[in-house]
């Protein structure tokens, strides 16, 4: 569902007025619906490397309408720009300018995806410069795309190839409507770990997942999305939110666990519940979080401590229990909800931003620990999302906040949930320690 302004400027008079006055023209984003095609229209693979050929062949095997050369005036569903063998910034010219000629042919809600290598693993300065160049290129290009089209990039680490499972998993995520509100972002694939799902409609089939803060908003959306993707969901929230929790649990055929995650034994109780009821635990989504906003000059210990306790200390303690548990094995996955406030900062949110930046630090440091048991941990940082919480922001502030991104609209709770569901899937197994922003390429904190 799009906001009222987006609806107004999408048709007839409203569309005409917005165009004449140069007002923002957000469009209704293409969002994932089970059973619908991955993309609408043909897909152009640009690049002349072996990696590009391999990738094109794989995409062809997905029954996509793959082009290796653009046909002028033909509307494209996506362009994949493969830049995996850059050695010098000069190498950018040919593939980039060839791509430029096709940009006007991109259909609404199209996708542009770069595949390149991480700069920090470059053998020399020129290669590093070329690889880092892709970062600026993609982020700028994403801002030039219109009509719901997005641009995102996949970075290959030393241990990854253009056809590694997680490369293909990320590619599928970026192509699909699952990434509707992800724009101008990179995901790094660091290894060959991971596995593509047998049934692309049920990538989480057979998995048991815990979602904290699942009673409402983004948490409820995560529970619904994981269930849709085939997972059995354990929904956790504070006892006082139990009625909403039960409602969501019954909707997604899950079990409700009323538990304050800041309790010392929360991790063990989650593990015990999962083990007793489901015999296993594969996925933990740390979504529960609170805000207690105040300018730091007016901050009191209660506000500061409660935010730190719930938003980061609880996650640390639960992860410790998880990483010590025999039930959290196989290919365990943790995904934490961070926030763009934790990246760019936000006035009045020193406590919240500290906790959310803490989540990012925790995720990076936990990656090698969980990697030891074949698992992964990542974070998702939502930008402006249309929830009950943001609905309480005063109208004018809210209206400005939701337009301040490349897609000129707020995201939906489901957009955050989609990113989380992807990172919780085995298709993302080669991605760990990453922070993926779901913010429509918010203009702050890029």
């Amino acid at each position, binding site marked *: 569902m799009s906001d009222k302004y987006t609806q107004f400027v999408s048709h007839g008079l409203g569309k005409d007025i917005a165009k004449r006055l140069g007002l923002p023209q957000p469009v209704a984003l293409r969002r994932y619906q089970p059973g619908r095609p991955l993309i609408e229209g043909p897909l152009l693979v640009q690049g002349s490397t072996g990696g590009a050929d391999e990738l094109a062949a794989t995409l062809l095997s997905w029954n996509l309408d793959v082009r290796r050369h653009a046909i002028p005036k033909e509307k494209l569903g996506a362009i994949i720009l493969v830049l995996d063998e850059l050695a010098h910034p000069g190498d950018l010219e040919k593939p980039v300018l060839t791509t430029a000629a096709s940009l006007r042919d991109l259909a609404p809600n199209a996708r542009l995806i770069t595949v390149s290598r991480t700069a920090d693993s470059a053998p020399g300065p020129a290669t590093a410069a070329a690889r880092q160049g892709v970062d600026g290129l993609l982020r700028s290009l994403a801002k030039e795309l219109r009509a719901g089209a997005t641009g995102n990039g996949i970075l290959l680490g030393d241990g990854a190839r253009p056809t590694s499972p997680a490369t293909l998993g990320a590619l599928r995520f970026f192509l699909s409507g699952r990434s509707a509100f992800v724009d101008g972002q990179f995901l790094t694939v660091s290894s060959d770990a991971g596995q593509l799902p047998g049934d692309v409609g049920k990538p989480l089939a057979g998995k048991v997942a815990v979602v904290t803060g699942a009673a409402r908003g983004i948490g409820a959306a995560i529970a619904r999305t994981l269930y849709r993707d085939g997972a059995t969901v354990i*929904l956790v929230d504070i*006892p*006082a939110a139990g*009625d909403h*929790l039960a409602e969501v*649990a019954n909707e997604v055929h*899950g*079990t*409700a666990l*009323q538990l304050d995650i800041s309790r010392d034994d929360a991790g063990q109780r989650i593990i015990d519940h999962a083990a007793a009821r489901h015999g296993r635990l594969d996925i933990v989504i740390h979504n529960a979080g609170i805000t207690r906003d105040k300018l730091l000059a007016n901050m009191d210990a209660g506000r500061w401590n409660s935010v730190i306790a719930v938003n980061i200390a609880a996650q640390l303690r639960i992860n410790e229990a998880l990483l010590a548990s025999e039930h959290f094995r196989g290919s365990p996955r943790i995904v934490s909800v961070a926030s763009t406030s934790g990246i760019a900062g936000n006035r009045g949110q020193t406590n919240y931003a500290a906790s959310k930046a803490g989540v990012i630090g925790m995720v990076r440091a936990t990656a090698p620990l969980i990697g030891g048991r074949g698992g992964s941990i990542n974070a998702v940082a939502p930008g402006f999302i249309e929830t009950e919480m943001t609905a309480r922001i005063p109208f004018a502030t809210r209206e400005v906040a939701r337009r301040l991104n490349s897609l000129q609209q707020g995201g939906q709770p489901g957009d955050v949930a989609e990113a989380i569901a992807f990172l919780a899937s085995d298709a993302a197994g080669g991605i760990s320690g990453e922070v993926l922003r779901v913010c429509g390429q918010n203009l702050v904190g890029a």
Partner: protein
Amino acid sequence: MSVNGPSVPRPQPAAKPAAGTSAAGPAAGPAAGAAAVTTQHVGAASAQLRRAVVVGGNRIPFARTGGAYTKSSNQDMLTAALDGLIARFGLQDERIGEVAAGAVLKHSRDFNLTREAVLGSALSAETPAYDLQQACATGLETVLGLANKIKLGQIDSAIAGGVDSASDAPIAVSEGLREVLLDLNRAKTVSRKLQVLSRLRPKDLAPDAPNTGEPRTGLSMGEHQALTTAQWKITREAQDELAFNSHRNLAAAFDAGFFDDLLTPYRGLSRDSNLRADTSLEKLATLKPVFGKNLGAEATMTAGNSTPLTDGASTVLLASEEWADAHDLPKLAAVVDGEAAAVDFVHGKDGLLMAPAFAVPRLLARHNLTLADIDFFEIHEAFAGTVLSTLAAWEDEDFGRTRLGLDGAFGSIDRTKLNVNGSSLAAGHPFAATGGRIVASLAKMLHAQGQVNGRPARGLVSICAAGGQGVVAILEAL
């Protein structure tokens, strides 16, 4: 272990063991229980009885009447309690063997209350249900009835429950108006209809408000208990202390998270609204008596040591062990046995709410148990005076000899084992919902306790009811 239990000669519990009872001890397995039954006249003589276990429960917080649930109907609350239970145990779309619940204050439109609640819940619409009504014992009786069906193998799973709203109580039209309306419906011609209507008098338009008084004595329950309280010489201080303990224990249980997996918030409440965590004996002592005021100085019953009218609902998930195992669900406690009793309060032989004083000795005797063999006592606090009168009767030599047919007093209980997580004085008492509240809480306590002296922990539930009735039950830890 048995359906109604192998019966023993009554009322001489001390004169046993009667045939079969020794084998029917609670520690004996189902087979032993069944063997005992064969020597008795109980119907299912050759049946291999199996265990009925409490998997868990769910209730909504209880609310004082006129409070948070003023606009909630019995069906709303029962459905909410069911949905919370379903969510806790993942029972969505599950076809449960049978659901039984009831309400004491019931609208005539709620003739199929439980089934309607099931249809409005997340359970499979193919789950059968029935209503049951036994005043305040309704909730416990649904547990016992359904447990018996599970033991007999008729069903594998069941949900017992109860609900009551004194806020949304039915109000009936007067008897005069009702007769006119019925005759009007039967009248065929206009002139006949007018003739019928002309019988209507202004006083017929006054509604018939609900009341919980005893139809045969005209006395309210509180007035009845006031007589009993005075008869057993229960002091004001003792009653206030029981009330104080109830609040203190319930508050501590909430603080410890005891109710995290027993309760689901509803309409903005996440704790029982009657709970006064900050009450004190001093505060309770300041309250004026509200019942038995004609007793003068002997009037001891206040709003503090009597339960208020309350709205709420509770549910308990019961199952066979096989069903619980197959669904990866916990087995907290076994429903061992139950017993109902009634007293002749109409002629003043016993107090209105004294039936449990007879039911408990009979039930314990059937299992070769004494009060000392019980680890948790859950004696419903209709009034503090009810609990204390019952305990006083058990400690009374004369009562034991003349009324229970024993050699002396039935016995006394260790007060530290009484209502350890609070009871109705603090939580409130939505009549039919109290049984479910107690059974689920007790099952959890028993499971946490596990073994006592090398045997499973044992709990006793005692609930008094209008009409001079009482239902009691034994649960045992698993």
